[in-house]
């Protein structure tokens, strides 16, 4: 993924700081670097799901490590985004088990419906459709990841409904409370 030059508004507020401190407390005093992945997830979630270079530098500062140590991690792991990805990113699993149960056709349907090619963001910045590798939902195919959650046993009708829900603002990508 290309590095973006778009200016990102950085806001490490009280809630986020408290959460970062909680995560840091999970590792020995002299091993704070270990918290890097969990901290990046939290910071990314609070910043429209992407990490500008400036934001990565802030994370380096918080953990007391060199910026390069953050960059090399951000570029290695697929879940960290170095540019804006659209508000709702539909990540379709297209590995074997999902592929043989119609994932490719469903992804194509979604792209056509939203008028984008794979990887593009819709002009209104709302949606992006990408193909990803196995998400561990093989028996519930076809499926996609949306924020922190999986949408499984998908059909065209379900895709239509999810798009509607996103447009109506009914989809919470990072719900903190787990309900049964």
């Amino acid at each position, binding site marked *: 993924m290309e590095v973006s030059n778009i200016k990102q508004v950085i806001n490490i507020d009280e809630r986020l700081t408290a959460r970062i401190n909680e995560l840091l407390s999970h590792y020995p005093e002299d091993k704070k670097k270990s918290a890097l992945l969990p901290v990046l997830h939290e910071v990314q979630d609070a910043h429209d799901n992407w990490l500008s270079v400036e934001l990565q530098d802030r994370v380096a500062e918080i953990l007391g490590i060199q910026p390069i140590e953050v960059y090399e991690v951000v570029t290695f*792991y697929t879940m960290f985004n170095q540019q804006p990805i659209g508000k709702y990113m539909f990540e379709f699993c297209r*590995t*074997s088990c999902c592929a*043989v149960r119609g994932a490719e056709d469903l992804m194509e349907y979604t792209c056509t419906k939203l008028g984008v090619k794979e990887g593009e963001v819709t002009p209104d910045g709302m949606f992006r459709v990408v193909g990803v590798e196995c998400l561990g939902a093989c028996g519930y*195919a076809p499926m996609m990841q949306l924020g922190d959650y999986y949408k499984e046993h998908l059909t065209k009708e379900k895709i239509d409904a999810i798009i509607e829900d996103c447009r109506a603002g009914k989809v919470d990508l990072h719900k903190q409370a787990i309900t049964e």
Partner: protein
Amino acid sequence: MGQKILLEHANVPGIKTYEVYRQHGGYRSVEKALKSMTPDEVVEEVKTSGLRGRGGAGFPTGMKWSFIDKKSGKPRHLVCNADESEPGTFKDRYLMEYIPHLLIEGMITSSYALGCNLSYIYIRGEYMWVFRILETAIKEAYAAGWLGKNILGTGYDLDLYVHCGAGAYICGEETALIESLEGKRGNPRIKPPFPAVSGLWANPTVVNNVESIAAVPWIVNNTGAEYAKIGIGRSTGTKLISASGHCKNPGVYEIELGLSVDEFMNSDEYLGGMMDDRPLKALVPGGSSVPILPANLIFKTAEGNDRLMTYESLSEGGFATGSMLGSGGFIVYNDTTCIVRNTWNFSRFYHHESCGQCSPCREGTGWLEKVLHRIENGHGREEDIELLWDIQRKIEGNTICPLGDAAAWPVAAAIRHFRDEFEYHVRFPEKIKNKDHFVAEPFEKVKHLVAKQEVI
């Protein structure tokens, strides 16, 4: 009905919460181990049980535990590998999502056995909602006094945390997982030193799969000898199988090892046969890395024995006519599946997931993907089949970690058992233009075209 050890209480309403889990006998193994057993006695029980690593390699868990370095005096760590990412595998997720406390109980009892005071569960980042379920469950366990200082007044201290990855299959390899837990890129380390000597922060470390650790409470409660009574030979106990693909009832099942593949596939208690009753074409029994089996080698081995769901039976015949139990990722394919397309799909996966450290894997996986893609899309050449064989052979065994082997084996097995399908793609490019070419016309119906040409 097979015995249920792991999923016995999975469907009890509210089992996700501490109270309900405790009411159903949860945390008894911690009481028993901490109050009436020495750590070494717990290790012995696990050795006696014959439990083998459930992540895929099948290495005896008790033996792995006995390798941990106790002489150095350094802090020791137990790390649970919950980075489940092998295509076809979704069993650990089920366990953690529905009975999170079983894993936590297993972590406490196992950490005690290994003498660890700081342990982690490393879960893949995509399972973020499961990460939160585990965080909540761990907080409950702390509040109830099962974690923290002086557990049950025995003087044993343990801190346990859940740590999330961020989308890298390679972190399922234990040394890459440790690197990732240290906040680095997931590049596997050269072994030796093994993690048991120098793992997390250079301390002695054991890395175990979720399912292996979740089996420990039952073993401690009921003895290793009782566990060893379940199963056949060196395949003891129960195994979670995650079934997907073209079977009637995909999902997660707990089976007693030794069940026949036929019964697992066809009985209504398990997969219920094939979706839409189409013919079975192939099976990947243990996750994408293990060799694919053609229909004639699924229910019977080449020797004519019944194929069983055991480590030994699934690998009977070696790679020539067998496969592996692996992670239990059981992927079923019917006659509409294109083996070339599926092999390309797997190769794309491994190419995407290669960490890039070793050239044979970094370059080789890309070549495999590229050559398979051109064959699947009608641009293949006759010599490409030999080329694929050559590439996979040069990756296998030539890399730091097993990802190289995992990328090579599916290609080798596909060519070994379905060579005529590759030849068909090369010789009849106009017939495979549509990606669903075998949906309209299964290979079985056009197979004769390849055979005929060979005669000429």
